[in-house]
């Protein structure tokens, strides 16, 4: 009964988010409300004392809050660069006239960045960058869609590029050599096949006026420092063992001191200091993200997602079909619990390490999420930051993402039969 109520609340919340503009309720509200109600229901399913309930939520919160803090830190750094008009330099560096060429360049940068950084970080960094560089809304949404696809595809083929791939790697289902060797071609095919149809939506050249703009005081310095702070996160993690968000906060702290020292003698540059700049951070999108993460954590806590994976297993009997379905399912709900469930269901003795099944799961769960905007963390962040309509993405991007997804899968199967 309670489980049914939990699923019903989740679906209602989901619909409220999708139809945000029709019902006139901010999607952050819906996400937050859904999360709160779900957790109340989850607590009713537990038979322990109320005092111990906290424990269930606490475990989830630790992970959720790291992502939120990372998002906040990255947004703050990007805002600082923006306040200094640092992105003027990027525009002039890129200096690509054709919108289509721009799409390809952004797609490939994202793809390779995401192989090193996780998808979410890459998406946050790239989307915040194009927000300041591309001024036409429609163009930006389309390029943002490409970033989501590229970030997900780029994460799938390296052990550190995506949470689900990392899980399979740490769990011993895949070795890093095998992941890179057998998934690189499918992943890049997934991106290329998605970008080919997508480019036809873009026409003409990037308008001149978006390329001029002079940088403010110390803009180049701040740009370099800010981008360094963002990109050196993996290095920070490797050296200190601290989670990525601490790296971002460290970078933000340093940037803060530097800007304070640079500007404290110039009262007219008050608006360039971090204390002022952080007021422009888009908090509702952070709240939206917090709500979604907490809601999915609630579903995971009661085992709904695991039950779904079990059902799939019973009804489908081909490995490839199961993998394809897990990918499609991951477009609707988060891929982390799905992969966790798959790892729990299929023993390593039945499917030995580096067997084809695990590779397919890694590819499918990594890239299938791009098909709906709400299906991957990168997409959710895109939705929050850019106020992208669910249906816009469905109309323009989903088809391209699906072409890429299935195309990449075909490439994988071909590659398996040849080697």
């Amino acid at each position, binding site marked *: 009964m309670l489980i049914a109520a939990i699923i019903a609340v989740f679906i209602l919340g989901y619909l409220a988010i999708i139809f945000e503009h029709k019902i*006139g*309720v*901010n999607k*952050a*509200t819906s996400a*937050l*409300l859904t*999360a*709160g*109600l779900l*957790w*109340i229901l989850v*607590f*009713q399913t537990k038979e322990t*004392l*109320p*005092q*111990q*309930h*906290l424990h269930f*939520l*606490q*475990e989830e*919160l*630790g*992970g959720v*809050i*790291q992502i939120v*803090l990372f998002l906040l830190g990255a947004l703050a750094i990007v805002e600082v660069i923006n306040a200094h008009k640092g992105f003027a330099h990027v525009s002039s560096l890129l200096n690509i006239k054709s919108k289509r060429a721009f799409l390809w360049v952004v797609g490939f940068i994202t793809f390779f960045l995401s192989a090193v950084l996780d998808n979410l970080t890459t998406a946050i960094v790239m989307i915040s960058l194009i927000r300041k560089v591309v001024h036409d809304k429609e163009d930006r949404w389309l390029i943002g869609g490409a970033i989501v696809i590229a970030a997900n595809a780029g994460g799938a083929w390296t052990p550190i590029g995506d949470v689900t791939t990392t899980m399979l790697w740490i769990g011993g289902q895949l070795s890093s050599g095998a992941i890179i060797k057998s998934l690189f071609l499918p992943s890049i095919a997934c991106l290329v096949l998605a970008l080919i149809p997508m480019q036809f939506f873009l026409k003409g050249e990037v308008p001149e006026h978006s390329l001029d703009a002079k940088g403010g005081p110390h803009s180049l310095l701040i740009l370099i420092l800010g981008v360094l702070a963002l990109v050196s996160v993996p290095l920070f993690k490797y050296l*200190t*063992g*601290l*989670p990525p968000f*601490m790296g971002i*906060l*460290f970078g*933000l*702290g*340093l940037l*803060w*001191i530097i800007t*304070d*020292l640079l500007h*404290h003698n110039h009262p007219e540059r008050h608006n360039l200091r*971090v*204390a002022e700049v*952080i*007021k*422009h*951070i888009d*908090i*509702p999108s952070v*709240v939206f993200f*917090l*709500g979604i993460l*907490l809601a999915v954590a609630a579903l995971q806590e009661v085992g709904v997602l695991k039950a779904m994976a079990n059902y799939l297993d019973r009804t489908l009997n081909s490995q490839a079909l199961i993998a394809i379905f897990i990918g499609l399912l991951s477009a609707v709900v988060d891929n982390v619990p799905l992969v966790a469930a798959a790892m729990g269901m299929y023993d390593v003795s039945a499917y030995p390490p580096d067997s084809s099944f695990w590779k397919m799961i890694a590819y499918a769960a990594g890239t299938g999420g791009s098909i709906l905007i709400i299906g991957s963390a990168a997409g959710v962040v895109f939705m929050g930051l850019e106020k992208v309509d669910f249906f816009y993405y469905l109309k323009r991007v989903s088809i391209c993402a699906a072409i890429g997804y299935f195309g990449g899968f075909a490439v994988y199967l071909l590659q398996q039969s040849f080697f």
Partner: protein
Amino acid sequence: MLNAPVDWLLIAICVVGYLFIMFEQSVKIGKATSALLMGVIAWIIEFSRTKFSHEEKSEIFGEHLSNIAQIIIFIVGVLTIVEVINSHDGFRFIKNYLAEKSKRKVLWIAGAFAFFLSAVLGSLTMTIVLVALISKIAENVEDRWIIGSGILLAGNAGGAFSPVGDITSTMLWIGEQLTSSRMVLDLFVPSLVCAVIALLLLQWRLKGNFPSISYEEEKISPISFAIFCLGVGAILLVPIMKGLTGLPPFMGILLGLSVIWLVTDLLHRSEEKAHLTIPRIITKLDLRGAIFFLGILLAIDALQTAGILGRLAKTLLALAPSPTWISLSTALVSAVIDNIPLTAGMMGMFPLEQFPTNHFLWQLLAYSAGVGGSILLIGSATGVAFMSMEKVPLKWYLKNISIPALLAFVAGFLTYKFFICQC
């Protein structure tokens, strides 16, 4: 005992960080920045020890972070709700109650509002709201300062007995050092005594009436008042929900916030009222407070993980005749240093196994950290806000208010000692 150089390095970082925070004005670096860097660097140093494996590191860290996050989300949630009420002019109805001629009566009414509203909406925000209202009523600077000080003392006392009234009380509540029911039951009377004594001592300094200005009764729109009630209800529901369903405070406040968000979204659909919706209101929040808090708690947690706080606690317990003295001395210390790191430090020093939930050490700590800060003007965040709003000189406060504040604190403490707990 502190033989590892890493320990000394860690302590040095925290001391230097704290000095930067204290002398924020002269070093020209905001205290949020210093706190943030202090917290991150402290953990870099702590994790540079080789004794941790990679998995242990993320486990240790995840646990600390989850606790910190709960408090921060809760506080940001409360601040947002208060800001929503404020944007809807939800506090203006108080002004009608303050339209009295006698100065003493105004002091008592303002004090009563400060005491009770602080318990729900937090002492810092209520002091700011009430002092702003008083400054429109009292023309004379001296009167304004005295009534403002009354608000400050009563507000800090009101915040001390309620789990949602003051950041330090909230920390002790979310950390499970105190439960909400016992906190209210045991600390309400001492806090009330403290506030009443403080107002009694202050009223002798006010004489006569305000020059008669025709107060026009302000019309309060039903929406403003409804939002006020909704906000207060949302905050009050948090401890109740925690007791009934076990929903942790940060989820409770997020739930309350989302309901208010929904209501305001539906109320203000037209473009000209868009400034009253939460996405716009949220941009007015000062995130620096939250960042400062994050940095401080990270640093304290690093000290705790290193075992430095535990050793400090042992030394303190060996020196002090009883835990009562430790709590009492925190009151005096909290008049000088910020009470957030102080409380966080105490929470890290004394484990719950030794001092279980609702132990008198924690109750006294909540009371002392909340009220003790009033003794000096810079001893509490509330005081600092009052100082900057009304340009109150530190010396004036020390000469006129510190002694009544100290007496009121002692009176509340004696009430606690003799009537609530024989310790």
